[in-house]
């Protein structure tokens, strides 16, 4: 086990702060990915949503990890404006519902998996449909394997980030079956899914908070 056994409120806040930073940094790339197979707003959508998340967390400082997730989820659902809003929002809201204090890696992993299941239910998307699920489901699996193998938090999060990045890359040859890109049929092949790309950023952000 890592020296850091439990994840506190500050960790969760830092997660969203870092995610907001990475999305802001990669905003134009995300929007360009969405321009290819969607409506060219994913970067701006998510940048806006995460800016609001950080603002809300600053205005009503959360006392628990659950409060961080609940606040972030609700804000994303309300303030993104695109499909990624209700989808990411549902991940974090459900994760918040499932999380128990104190937050161990095992508890984090189980709650994260519940979040991914909520996303899959809302979007009716499965692995291989060329959506954010293709990054988040492998990330969740990596976390579960890390728990099983007794890997430390830092390494577990890094493995999850790697799995998400690979999952996002793996969407390139796929044909979209959900979301706007699915209207393009075969023309969606050959482009990385923007939601999968942003999901990889969320997981990359997570890897930086386990110090």
């Amino acid at each position: 086990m890592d020296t850091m056994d439990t994840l506190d409120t500050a960790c969760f806040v830092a997660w969203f702060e870092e995610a907001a930073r990475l999305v802001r940094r990669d905003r134009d790339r995300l929007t360009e990915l969405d321009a290819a197979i969607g409506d060219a707003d994913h970067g701006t959508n998510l940048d806006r949503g995460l800016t609001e998340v950080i603002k809300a967390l600053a205005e009503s400082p959360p006392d628990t990890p659950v409060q961080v997730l609940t606040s972030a989820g609700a804000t994303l659902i309300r303030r993104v404006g695109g499909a990624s809003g209700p989808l990411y929002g549902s991940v974090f809201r459900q994760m918040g519902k499932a999380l128990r204090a104190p937050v161990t890696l095992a508890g984090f992993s189980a709650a994260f998996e519940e979040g991914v299941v909520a996303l899959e239910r809302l979007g009716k998307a499965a692995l291989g449909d060329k959506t954010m699920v293709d990054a988040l489901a492998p990330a969740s699996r990596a976390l579960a394997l890390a728990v099983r193998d007794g890997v430390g938090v830092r390494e577990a999060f890094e493995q999850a980030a790697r799995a998400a990045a690979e999952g996002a890359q793996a969407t390139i040859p796929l044909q979209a079956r959900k979301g706007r890109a699915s209207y393009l049929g075969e023309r969606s092949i050959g482009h990385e899914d923007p939601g999968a790309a942003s999901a990889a950023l969320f997981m990359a952000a997570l890897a930086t908070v386990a110090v």
Partner: protein
Amino acid sequence: MVGLVLVSHSAGLATEAVALVLGIAGRDPPVAAAGGTDDGRLGTSLDLIEAAVRAVDQGDGVVLVPDLGSSVLTCRLVEEPGRVVVADVPFVEGAIAAAVTAGTGASLADVLAAAEEARAFRKL
């Protein structure tokens, strides 16, 4: 009467669709638009949908008619089985059929069924 909310990515499309629906179904059924984001971009706003639901809710249930994508996903988050339901129907045609049926004082289930029938309706 059952209420109706037309949820589109586009504020203009939602508003114009409501106007056409009322032109056909008459002024009786409560129909509201929830189009675009709360800052006027193309997209969906949960706040606008919730406000529209409140505006048309007379206690007999509300049918949400989304156009696609985030409209559908966001609508699903406000569903309350038996009270607020999402109709997976053609946006314009389903809304017209639902509104006309709502105008007769039909139940939520009947309004939903009428909207679903619009799928099979032939125009030619």
